């Protein structure tokens, strides 16, 4: 049965339906837009390396980068490349793999229903051959090499690498040129059949379409297909200590300006009821201190330690959470020391009511702005839904956060062992 929910403050209506095969479908019509954006995502990403395959008993561990490899290969069918099915209709298709998700998506302004059928069918009808798996290794190796040259990317993953002892979040999403060589057609089918089961997937469509017809079309499409029975997927993550694995690492690369990143690791093992609140707070607090209006940003700027490439971000998923901040600097050691000293001050810091009010207002504006984008709505909705939450409740949840919640978070965020530094220095043999 299709469920209809109206969100008063946002003036949006969401249609939801859990299909018989386990697939969760969400439709958010936005008739004022000219396009439609659809995303078909599985709760499967680069961290899901050790698991019990469907209808088996024992854990297996698959090569690094396999979720991303699988993402590439799903577009290729025996007789054609599925990209072309979309482009023939003027639509554009794409896909991405993150730590925890693999998602297939398209945007289109015409023939929406045909494109939705194509999206469902190509993701649910894999075709892998030995020959095409070998060919893909060359293409992905080029992609990995491209990332290897990008200093910002290396700095981000270097910082994550410093934080984690065992957790697979530290593994590069695409794997390495070496690790992908071991991937076989059989590995791909094993991962596919386990993680691409409809009960592990969500379909979200937003834009210019009529919801009743769309839901009927999706249900009819799914009824034609049969899947094995799957209860839950057993995934294994080795125990992760709350401390960082390494305090500091320096990498040499051909960059003109050094980079310095600071990582803050949080001890998150499972998803708690206050997940969304914590997610908002981490963002708001980092923003409060390190955006251009922040006092810590101001200190770094006054000491001439940063330039306008300085950035910060927070990641929070089912069993890990961390933040990374930093950027270009001519004084990497001084920047690292200053940020670490600033972070330690949080223990004894309390926000004033006017600061807290400003933080809330800013976040409100930011959330409304992010909802201008169909892509953001779809991706954020899936992110929270996979963890058991509703993205469209963010505004009311934000409203209920108290200054005490914010101060508690701030004062317990940093301890002596959860901060790390990663630096990139210009290669010494170069000028």
């Amino acid at each position, binding site marked *: 049965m299709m469920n209809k929910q109206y969100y008063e403050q*946002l*003036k949006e209506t969401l249609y939801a339906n859990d299909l018989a095969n386990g697939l969760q479908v969400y439709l958010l019509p*936005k008739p*004022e*837009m*000219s*396009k439609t954006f659809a995303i078909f995502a599985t709760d499967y990403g680069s961290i899901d390396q050790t698991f019990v395959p469907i209808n088996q008993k024992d854990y297996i561990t698959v090569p690094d980068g396999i979720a991303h490899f699988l993402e590439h290969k799903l577009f290729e069918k025996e007789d054609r*490349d599925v*990209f*072309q099915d979309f*482009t*023939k*209709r*003027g639509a*554009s298709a794409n896909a991405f793999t993150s730590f925890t998700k693999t998602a297939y998506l398209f*945007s*289109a*302004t*015409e023939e929406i229903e045909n494109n939705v059928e194509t999206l469902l069918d190509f993701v649910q009808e894999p075709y892998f051959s030995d020959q095409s798996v070998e*060919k893909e290794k*060359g*293409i992905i190796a*080029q*992609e990995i*090499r*491209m990332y*290897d*040259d*990008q*200093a910002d990317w290396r700095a981000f993953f270097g910082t994550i690498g410093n934080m984690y002892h065992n957790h697979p979040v530290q593994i590069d999403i695409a794997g390495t040129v070496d690790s992908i060589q071991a991937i076989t057609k059989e590995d791909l089918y094993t991962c596919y059949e386990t993680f691409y089961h409809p009960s592990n997937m969500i379909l979200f469509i937003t834009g210019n379409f009529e919801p009743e017809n769309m839901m009927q079309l999706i249900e009819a499409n799914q009824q034609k297909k049969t899947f094995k029975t799957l209860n839950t997927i057993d995934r294994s993550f080795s125990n992760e200590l709350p401390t960082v694995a390494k305090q500091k690492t320096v990498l040499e690369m*051909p960059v*003109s*300006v050094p980079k310095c990143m600071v990582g803050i690791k949080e001890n998150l093992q499972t998803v708690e009821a206050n997940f969304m609140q914590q997610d908002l707070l981490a963002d708001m607090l980092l923003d409060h201190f390190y*955006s*251009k*209006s*922040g*006092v810590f940003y*101001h200190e770094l*700027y006054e000491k*001439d330690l940063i*330039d*306008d*490439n300085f950035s910060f971000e927070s990641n929070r998923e089912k069993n890990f959470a961390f933040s990374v901040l930093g950027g*270009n600097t*001519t004084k990497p050691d001084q920047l690292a020391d200053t940020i670490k000293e600033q972070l330690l001050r949080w223990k004894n810091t309390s926000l004033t009511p006017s600061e807290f009010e*400003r933080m809330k*207002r*800013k*976040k*409100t*504006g*930011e959330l*409304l*702005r992010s909802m*201008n*984008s*169909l892509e953001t709505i779809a991706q954020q909705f899936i992110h929270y839904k996979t963890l058991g939450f509703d993205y469209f409740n963010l505004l009311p949840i934000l409203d209920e956060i108290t200054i005490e919640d914010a101060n508690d978070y701030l004062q317990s965020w940093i301890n002596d062992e959860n901060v790390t530094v990663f630096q990139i220095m210009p*290669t010494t043999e*170069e000028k």
Partner: protein
Amino acid sequence: MTISNEKISKQNGYQLHVINTKKFKTIHIVLKFRAPLTKENITKRALLPFVLQQGTTSYPTQNKFRQALDNLYGSELNMDGAKKGNNHILTLRMEIANQGYLTTDTNIFHEAVKLLHEVIYSPKASNGAFDENIVTREKQTLKQKIHSIIDNKMSYANMRLIDEMCAEEAYRLHVHGYEDDLESINAQTLYQYYQELLSKDQMDIYVLGDFSSINVEDTISSYFNHDRHTQSIENSKETYNVETTKEIEEQQNIQQAKLHLGYRTDITYGDSLYPALQVFNGVFGGFPSSKLFINVREKNSLAYYAASRFESHKGLLLVFSGIAPNDYKQAKQIILEQMEAMKKGEFSEEDVEESKKQVKNQWKETIDHPNGLIEILYHQVLANADRTPTEVLTQINHVAKSDLMEVASKLQLDTVYFLTAQGGKNDE
């Protein structure tokens, strides 16, 4: 479907463009300052966005200024410079929450326009000069920006291609300016130039959003009402004859080589062949279904990316690819073969129809983004053309295969630029 209902009105010293749409939960205000691209001014224009965002008379530090924006429900404000053909465009964008989604009685739109006006007309300055410390500091910021271009290999290769290709033209000028010219700029000369810009640049203001209860024109014109002496800008049409193709090779310590090619198209936004150029680019290299992607990446596994794009106001078509250093010869040959195939008409009517659909889709998607829509509308100002976005879509529908071959016949390969690994052999 309406592409946009843009209402243009002449104000004191500028044009106001109001676009009323229910698509977004925020309101966008965009100011554009346009001047001819010159070596003399480019570095000052590159520096200004950095200095202007450091504070105003009422909010004299960056910190205070940004806090004022945050208090205004997280308003966003940013400023940057860009090259469009032979013009330099300084753009200031402000995005604010639409009151309709908030529970406050403060008139946010009015407050935002007031703040925006202050950023432009009352920056932190005294005695005919910007703040000395801010200028010194931001010169440093810009200098670092100039230095770090080399760290992004794709943009670096693109910049170097244009350096070589347009060595004698205004378009060669780097958008971040030049370190040498930076030395001679001080708080006073920069302020003087800024006053000149405020008076003489062609100025357009765009306001976009859901204005069911706001009088946009009154609010804007009550603040933005200064006598200006705008200089008119001529759109002189340039044509080029390529006699010999330039080949440039450069080596750096990198893993992946960049092969970039520059063609002269002789077609700009105002030309009748412009819609055909868009469709041409779609068949040739604009999409994952294009010849370049299919042949360089998919059939030969030579590159992670291989694509083309065109410059609407300069008449250039640029090809980009990231390849293994040793594959230079083969990749270049395949790219040149794809262009040859375009010239010979070796593509089907179906390819043309598919590209038309993709180009139209891309246009319609762009106008679902607030800044995308404003950029598309600003094309008309830049080209001094009356072609509305809706007309462009209609004209794309009428493009035929023969039009693409006419586009192809005008294309001339000007420069091949190759950035490769040190000691890499590419002549085997």
